[in-house]
């Protein structure tokens, strides 16, 4: 029912950006579906195997920006064997064939070959932005192709990728005519780069706002680069190691004083702590600070730094800061919204963090809504306090280093603590559990976590009931990943329709058998049920009663995929 001409609706739709909203729009009526699909420029595909590239191109002719995710989340933790899939080449090939005017490609956990980067760089003359997160299999040769061929490149953002560094000088491949860079992040590269080339690149990129260096860029080069880019907003320092020439250091301090726009700081892969004083001029303005790779900064120096960061909204840090340090964070960073505390290899145990640090944070930072917290222990009392202090959690991820540790004060499981979290944080969308947990915690989750979309469970639960509570209760569940829990066939098969409402389910080292997976696959043709059989010869049919080591199922319109390795059985 349209009271407006199409052009008006199109115009209105321009204001609708989020893909979820757009998805909703497209379901209203046929004409809205049509208008929406013709005007959508950005598409997000959470599972690259859920749909074929051809179908995507067919539906969205105006496609300019594509986000793709490949491997399941647990691949981050080495649970997915090599070669599983997530190859981007077929997508790039199809997009090229379909003459899509691609401008932006964002990939996460995908296999990106140099060939795909080559093809990408040549097939899309308007290509502007490449973001690769946790990808693998490309080398600096692929980067060279991007640098050389993408005339209008604005963004090259490499986050935590495994990149093979070949001896070629990929940075030199940016032609002199390339002046459009806005964002360049190569912090994850391990090799040397030519700092002279980098300096010149920075010098001719007046729009450069974000620059993240790798560890091969020394202090003096950093100073020269920053001198040419005082307009930077986001800086990743590769290495800040003492230069014997005091002059360079003094120069750096002067230069930092001129960088008045930096609000985001990261890196310090190599650092001499006393050089951090050079950073002090920019600390008060920082809204984002990522020191999670700065193993060289001892806790005491971290604390000294933090005291200056009153405007911080996002903090990623290592647990060497200690509970005491987190107390300082709580007192200083009143605007804190996101906190991630990563475990260090610190042998001095007293420097690590416990529930005390988290409680302190919750008391001092009421705006906190995202948390990733690796700690040595957690108590129910602490979680209950945190739940009370911070009812705004959207993401709450707790990783106790000893995965099944109970509350050390009471020796009880952490059911009540997490129960309090889900009960209090009604907007919780993502939750990761750890510590000793019975079925009860899942009862709570099913009851209270109404907005929960992603749940990660490890070494928890007692029976199928646990998983069933979750499947029944969490209506908005999209991703469920379970490892080492006693959930079996009953839990898997009770509500098979549920899985079509979800993106994916991962179960590894649980009690599910091959037979049950077969039943599931048969009942639900629009699911790909993959089981990984790494240790058996490919032609050996697994026994139905055999337990499945790893199962990954996902809804799909693309049918069984053709690029699965031998050890993956799609049932």
């Amino acid at each position, binding site marked *: 029912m349209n009271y407006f001409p199409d052009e008006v609706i199109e115009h209105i739709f321009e204001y609708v950006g989020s893909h979820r909203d757009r998805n909703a729009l497209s379901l209203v009526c046929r004409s809205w579906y049509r208008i929406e699909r013709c005007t959508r420029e950005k598409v997000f595909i959470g599972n690259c195997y859920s749909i074929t590239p051809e179908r995507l191109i067919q539906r969205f002719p105006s496609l300019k920006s594509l986000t793709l995710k490949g491997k399941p989340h647990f691949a981050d933790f*080495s649970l997915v064997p090599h070669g599983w899939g997530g190859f981007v080449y077929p997508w790039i090939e199809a997009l090229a064939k379909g003459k899509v005017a691609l401008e932006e490609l964002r990939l996460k956990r995908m296999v990106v070959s140099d060939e795909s980067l080559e093809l990408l760089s040549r097939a899309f003359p308007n290509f502007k932005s490449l973001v690769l997160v946790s990808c693998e299999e490309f080398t600096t040769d692929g980067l060279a192709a991007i640098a050389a061929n993408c005339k209008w490149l604005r963004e090259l953002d490499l986050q935590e990728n495994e990149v093979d560094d070949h001896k070629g000088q990929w940075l030199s491949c940016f032609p002199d005519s390339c002046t459009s860079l806005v964002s360049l992040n190569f912090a994850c590269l391990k090799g040397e780069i030519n700092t002279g080339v980098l300096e010149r690149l920075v010098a001719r990129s007046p729009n450069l706002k974000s620059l993240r260096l790798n560890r091969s860029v020394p202090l003096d080069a950093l100073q020269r680069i920053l001198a040419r880019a005082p307009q930077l907003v986001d800086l990743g320092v590769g290495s800040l190691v003492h230069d014997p020439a005091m002059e360079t250091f003094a120069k750096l301090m002067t230069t930092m004083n001129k960088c008045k726009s930096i609000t985001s700081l990261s890196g310090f892969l190599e650092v001499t702590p006393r050089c951090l004083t050079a950073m002090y001029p920019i600390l008060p303005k920082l809204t984002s600070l990522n020191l999670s790779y700065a193993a060289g900064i001892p806790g005491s120096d971290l604390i000294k730094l933090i005291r200056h960061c009153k405007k911080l909204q996002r903090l990623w840090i290592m647990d060497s800061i200690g509970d005491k340090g987190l107390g300082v964070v709580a007192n200083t960073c009143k605007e804190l919204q996101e906190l991630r505390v990563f475990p260090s290899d610190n042998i*001095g145990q007293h420097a690590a963090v416990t529930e005390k640090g988290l409680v302190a944070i919750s008391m001092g930072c009421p705006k906190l809504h995202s948390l990733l917290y690796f700690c040595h222990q957690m108590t129910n009392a602490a979680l209950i306090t945190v739940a009370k202090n911070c009812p705004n959690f959207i993401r709450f991820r707790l990783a106790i280093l000893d995965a099944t540790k109970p509350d050390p004060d009471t*020796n009880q499981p952490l059911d009540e603590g997490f129960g309090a979290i889900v009960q209090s944080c009604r907007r919780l969308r993502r939750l990761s559990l750890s510590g000793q947990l019975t079925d009860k915690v899942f009862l709570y989750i099913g009851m209270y976590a109404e907005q929960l979309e992603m749940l990660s469970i490890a070494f928890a639960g*007692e029976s199928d009931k646990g998983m069933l509570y979750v499947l029944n209760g969490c209506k908005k569940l999209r991703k469920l990943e379970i490892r*080492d829990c006693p959930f079996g066939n009953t839990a898997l098969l009770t509500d098979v329709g549920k899985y079509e409402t979800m993106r994916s389910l991962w179960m590894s080292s649980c009690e599910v058998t091959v037979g049950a997976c077969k039943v599931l696959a048969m009942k639900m043709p629009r699911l790909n049920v993959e089981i*990984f059989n*790494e240790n058996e010869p490919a032609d050996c049919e697994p026994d139905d009663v055999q337990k499945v*080591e790893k199962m990954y199922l996902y809804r799909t319109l693309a049918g069984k995929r053709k690029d699965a390795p031998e050890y993956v059985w799609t049932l």
Partner: protein
Amino acid sequence: MSTPLEHDYIGLAEKKKIPSSSSSSSSEDGKTFKETELRLGLPGSESPERKPLSGVSLSLFGNLNNNNNVMNHHVHVAGAKRGFSDAIDAKWAFSDAHGSDSDLGKPSALFSPRGSGNVVGKPPLDPKTISTQQGNSINTPASASQSIKESKPLQEKNPQLPATNEHASAPASKAQVVGWPPIRSFRKNTMASNLTKNNDEAEGKPGFGCLYVKVSMDGAPYLRKVDLKTYSNYKELSSALEKMFSCFTIGQCNSPGLPGKDGLSESSLRDLLHGSEYVLTYEDKDGDWMLVGDVPWEMFTDSCRRLRIMKGSEAIGLAPRAVEKSKSQN
């Protein structure tokens, strides 16, 4: 030195609190309570070590994989919980010392740890039994026997021990389950290489792996560096420093010290250090100068940034003891 607080992701350091009943032989079927305890020692050993008991890890929780590449049937007992242990790659769990004795149960599928398995010995943590065993508590017979009952049919499943040695003797302080704690492998790899790098370039106190600190001595023309990690107590440190700086003090020694004679110069230096003239001090993390020897060794190595062998006369105000000591000896 106290039991080393090996600090690994699974909080192994906790383990020292666990009543360390001696690890029983791994091959018995009769599961006693003790065998279900969290333990790290080899049979017969009491100290927490990286190699856990074969028996412990397998008994309750089903079959453990005997090697990375076997992913066969699970012998599964209905109702038995798959515990933490199942997730642990048995490779590291068993030294071959136990292998021969063990009752080789059916191998079961474990975490398939392809390549990532630098899993080293750690006793499994069955959520059920762990609850009664962890921390400081004494095992509650009731729940333990219940868990034992539940998994009884599983009996002893000591896996064969194929080349587990390399894993069993993997870096001492790392006893990890594949994929736990959940850290991106990129981050893990980066931190690992950071560690080596920092060790190589150790300057001041990088904080991990080694602890090179500068040592200065008042009046000496140049400084030295020592790795605090190579000493385990103050005595060792002090004698090492004595040896290092003896050459600077010969001339100032009150007693006739003949250069070149180790014994003589050492003793004169010792006299100096412990006696009248010199006091060993250190700068801690907060930048304060402290007297060496007040805090436990571990705490000292954690907070010490540099050392200074200070003239007694300057040590006034640092600590009354030092002053009195220097006065009394003069």
